């Protein structure tokens, strides 16, 4: 039958927003569950803040990665670049000319350099992003071990001061068993996370560049026909992801205070998982940067839950894996349900909705 396409002015939620909402709801449910199961630890504000304090580098990396993924790419070099930055900063800070400002420049410089190199190869020479950033991962790992093999503990007084600096929220805290009030503490890294989140989320929502990234990720050929400079847009996404990896590296060493060969190893995979749980699709074009911290925190809360339950740590990895399966299936089911009007849909019969919703468009002919 011909479709009766009655025009409804009501706009439905966009795919980006619906996936973000799902991620947010799951996170809240998860956290409530954690509070109910382990009120001692999860009821404390400090536990919540510590999720940020200790995992700021991962959240920052996820932010940059989300931008690349929305543009339809992938960057698996970020963990290694972050690790390289920690070691480079440590070596620099321990040298004679070490200074905090210089270390920040080193961090940003390394990150941006990787971003420019990889962005150029991927956008302008049109080489597979997976291969290029895999090479970047090896390059960064190699540079890291060449730079220094043994752990370096940064002892520079100014830096140690920065490392131990806490912002105390005097009015928010918990009483311990003895009834002493312990105020909550926030690390500098958490502040950087919040600032970056606001800047990058605004960039994606309100800047021409941000919208171009969505367009390119949605359909790069169409984007080109619409007059968007596709190559430059892709290039900039990788530079941004390199930049955030650099920042993450600096925040990492600001948190731990040491350069180590194993720093941030494998973080790129956690970042990818976080981005996906946060509602960014691997196919590109769909995602919300606010989902990046949500995704990371969901992953972390699950790990914390398992740890609190006293289960062996290898179960954490297993549950993370299963959770990722669950999210990806959930996302594709939602996407197919929403798009069923346009494609034939490969949904199994037991998942299909009943009768009236089935064929609306050009189905029968």
């Amino acid at each position: 039958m011909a479709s009766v396409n009655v025009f409804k002015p009501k706009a439905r939620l966009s795919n980006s927003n619906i996936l973000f909402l799902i991620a947010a709801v799951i996170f809240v449910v998860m956290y409530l569950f954690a509070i109910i199961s382990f009120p001692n630890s999860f009821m404390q504000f400090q536990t919540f803040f510590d999720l940020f304090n200790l995992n700021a580098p991962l959240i920052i990396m996820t932010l940059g990665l989300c931008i690349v993924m929305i543009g339809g790419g992938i960057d698996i070099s970020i963990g290694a670049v972050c690790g390289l930055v920690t070691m480079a900063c440590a070596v620099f800070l321990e040298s004679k000319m070490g200074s905090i400002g210089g270390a920040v420049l080193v961090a940003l410089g390394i990150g941006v350099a990787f971003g420019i190199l990889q962005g150029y190869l991927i956008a302008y020479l049109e080489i597979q992003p997976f291969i290029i950033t895999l090479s970047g991962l090896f390059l960064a790992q190699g540079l890291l071990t060449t730079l220094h093999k043994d752990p370096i503990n940064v002892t520079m007084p100014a830096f140690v001061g920065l490392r131990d600096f806490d912002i105390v929220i005097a009015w928010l805290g918990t009483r311990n068993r003895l009834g002493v009030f312990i105020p909550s503490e926030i690390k500098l890294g958490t502040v950087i996370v919040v600032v970056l989140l606001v800047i990058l989320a605004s960039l994606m929502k309100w800047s021409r560049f941000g919208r171009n990234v969505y367009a390119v990720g949605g359909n790069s050929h169409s984007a080109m026909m619409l007059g968007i400079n596709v190559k430059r847009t892709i290039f900039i996404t990788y530079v941004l992801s390199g930049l955030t990896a650099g920042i993450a590296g600096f925040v990492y060493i600001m948190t731990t205070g040491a350069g180590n060969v194993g720093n941030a190893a494998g973080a790129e995979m956690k970042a990818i998982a976080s981005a996906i749980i946060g509602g960014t699709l691997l196919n590109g074009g769909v995602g919300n940067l606010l989902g990046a911290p949500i995704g990371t925190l969901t992953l972390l809360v699950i790990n914390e839950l398992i740890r609190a339950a006293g289960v062996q740590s290898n179960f954490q990895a297993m549950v993370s894996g299963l959770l990722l399966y669950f999210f990806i299936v959930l996302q594709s089911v939602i996407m197919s349900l929403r798009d069923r009007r346009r494609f034939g849909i490969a949904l199994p019969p037991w998942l299909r909705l009943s009768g009236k919703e089935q064929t609306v468009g050009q189905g029968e002919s």
Partner: protein
Amino acid sequence: MLSETILEMKDISKSFPGVKALDSVDFKLRKGEIHALMGENGAGKSTLIKVITGVYGKDAGLITLQGESIHFKAPEEAQNKGIGTVYQEIMLCPNLTVAENMFIGRSHSLVVNWKQMNEKAAQLLDSLGIPASPVQELTSCSLAVQQMIAIARAVDMDCKILILDEPTSSLDEDEVHKLFKLMRELKARGVGIIFITHFLEQVFEISDRITVLRNGKLVGEYETTSLSQIELISKMLGNVLEDITKIQKHEPIVSDTSIPVFEGIGLSSAAGVRPFNFVIQRGEVNGFAGLLGSGRSESARAIFAADKVTGGEVRMKGKSVKIKTPLHAIKQGIGYLPEDRKGDGIIDDLSVRDNIILTLQVMKGFFKPFSLKQAETFAEEYIKKLNIKTPTPDTPIKSLSGGNQQKVILARWLLTNPEFLILDEPTRGIDVGTKVEIQKLVIKLANNGMSLTFISSEIDEMIRTCSRLIVMKDREIVGELKGTELTETEVMNVIAQGGKNPCLN
């Protein structure tokens, strides 16, 4: 309405290696008219469009836009001069909102002003009567609305010329009418519209003028009202008078009691062909006739299950069989030479020999490979039989000419000794000599008892070889011709009279 000319093309020629795609073609577009550009595949319609929009450069000729001589080097330049193009495939981003799709890539400001953009989009949608909300995601709009949004974008860019390249091929009847309403609206505003479609009824419904191209040459420009459907069809198809030796066709002996080789009842496929019945006898050559897009290839593909089969029953020699995939069909003794030789037929980098034995190998099973000697015997036999011009059987097939590639694929099927062979456009894009050879071969095979379905866009070829023609229009069978009825005029009559519904639904 003023009949002021906005675009004039004179003596446009364009050659590609080996083909003259356009041969001094003239084209004239006036302000506020809808001008249909008609022609069969390979007539040069899309080449002409691409010359206008600057995708291709022209070899010779002159293009003037409102009295100014132009020579575009890239599509953006044409866009900036007010030539908007809407392609068959919708060139928009599905994940962005309607408003964004209308304005993205056009603003120079670094910041997106959502409020202003949505207001402007709402105005534009309103003024064109497009039923969509600016804040809606594009995927949630129907295809027709998406197509209209693409048009709205072009309109807002202040276009004077709008090129619509087969915009209706994926729309249903309702949606087509919405699109037509929009086109009339634009016409009233003085936009010149070039409309390409293969649905004849639509041309007569909407266009003011028709320009017909055939084989890269201009046939003529006509007022739509002065032309009947049959005249248009004959102008599009032409009378291809080739110096071909009279081919003696084979008339099968069919009695009422003979059991057909293949019998399909109510066949339909996901490609959108209406359920049809199809019967072929031993030693018979029949064909599907119809214009491009009439469903002739889709029907052949449905028989071979090349597209997803959605219904119907099949009997081979009276026995009910299940044919759901091409492999089933091959195992039942059906062969299919696809229309798209490059995409569906040859394996570019494999040698002529490997291409020949491919299907037989599939039938035998991949774990029981032919010995090199066996393969060579097969290949040499058919290279000789079909007169395939190749340096050695080891030459990669891609270095052969189109006609010889076609013969290799024919050899591939003949090697499997099918009972029923479907040839979909086997003569397209190959030289006249090979065309005749293939037609002669078809008749020889039928004489030896094979049943064949022969499809060609050149009707005279089919009339020469087939004993029965099934005429299709708008994806359904509208008639069947045999014996003395088999003339070009009769085929055109059936196409022009049959079926009044212009589109799929």
